[in-house]
C-alpha cells in the first residue's frame, strides 16, 4: 500500500471538518469540526514523519495536540460564557460585531 493514502485520508478529513465549520451553527459542533481538522493535519504530520524517516513530524503533532488541548479549554469556556449571557450556543446569534 502506498503510504500516501494516509495523506489522502488526511485531506479528506480536513475538508469534511472545514465543511462542518462552515455549515454547522452549534458552536460546540463547530468546535468539534475544528478538532477534526487538527487531527487530520496530525495524521498528515505522522505520515510524513514516517516517509522522511525522522521524528520531527511526530514532535510537531505532539505540540499540536498540546495546543489543541489548551484551545479546547479556552474555547469551551468562551462558549459557556456566551451561552450564559445569550441563552444560545448558535454562532449566528453572536453577530453584533458588524457594520
Amino acid at each position: 500500500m502506498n503510504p500516501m493514502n494516509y495523506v489522502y485520508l488526511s485531506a479528506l478529513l480536513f475538508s469534511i471538518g472545514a465543511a462542518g465549520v462552515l455549515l454547522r451553527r452549534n458552536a460546540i459542533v463547530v468546535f468539534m469540526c475544528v478538532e477534526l481538522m487538527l487531527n487530520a493535519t496530525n495524521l498528515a504530520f505522522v505520515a510524513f514523519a514516517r516517509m522522511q524517516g525522522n521524528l520531527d513530524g511526530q514532535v510537531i503533532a505532539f505540540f499540536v495536540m498540546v495546543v489543541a488541548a489548551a484551545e479546547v479549554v479556552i474555547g469551551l469556556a468562551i462558549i459557556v460564557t456566551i451561552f450564559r449571557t445569550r441563552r444560545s450556543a448558535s454562532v449566528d446569534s453572536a453577530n453584533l460585531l458588524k457594520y
Partner: protein
Amino acid sequence: MTISGSTLVALAAAGTPTGTATGTGEAVLFWLLAPIAVLASLGMLFSKKAVHSALLLALTMLCLAAFYLAQDAPFLGVVQVVVYTGAVMMLFLFVLMLVGVDSSDSLVETLRGQRIAAIVAALGFGALLVFSIGDVVVSNAGLATANADGNVQGLAALIFSRYVFAFEVTSALLITAALGAMVLAHRERIERPLNQRQLSEQRFRGGVHPAPLPGPGVYARHNAVDTPALLPDGQPADVSVSRVLLARGDVRKAPGADVVVRDASEIERPGDDQ
C-alpha cells in the same frame, strides 16, 4: 480502552514491515478503518444531535490513533486515545450537557448561499489538496533507525533538545489556558443570594405553580420520565416531563391522550423568566 489499544498495537506491529514498503497487515488495517473514519466524520457533520456528533468524532479519533500506531508512532497513538478521546471529548460532552439543547442544533441553513458556497469550497479545497498530493514524489524512509532506541525515547530526545524552547513555551500556554478558562467561566455574583424566605415569597408572587411541579406519568406499561402525567380531565400535563426531553423530542405520547405536545417553547414553566 486499554484492551482495544493494545490489540491495535499488536495488529499494527504485525502489519508493519521493516523497510520502505508497507505491509499487507497495514493495508488491511487502513482499508478497514479509513472508511469508518470518513463515515464517522461525515456522520458527525450531518447528525442532528450534538451528542451523536461528539461520539462519532471520538470514533474517528480512535481510528486515527490506530493509524498512528500503524505508522511507528505508538506514543502519539496512546496520547491520542488518552488525551483526545479520553479527556478532550469528555470535556465536550460535559459542556454539551451543561449547555443543553436549543435551536442551534437545527440543520436548517439561515445564511443565504452559505450552504452551497461551503460545500463548493470544501469540495474544491479537497480536490486541490488531493490533486497536489498526487504530484508529490514519495519516499518511504521508515522510522526503523529513528525509533531504534524506542519511539518514546526518540521523541523525548527531540523534545528536550531541539524543541525544548517550544516545549517550555507550551507549558506557559497551558497555564495561561487554565487561568483563562477559570476567568472566563467564573461568574461574579453581583447581588446577595436569596434566602429561603425570599425564594418562597418569590415563588408565590409568581402565582403560576406555587406547589412542586407534577411528576411524570406512572403507567402500566411505562413508569418513566419521558411520559407526561394525565390531568384529571384526561389531558397530558406537559410540565410533568423534563424540558430537555421535550427539546430533544424524546417525549412519549401519554396513553389515551389525544393532544400531542406541541413545542417546548410554548409550554409555560415557572422559573423560565429568571
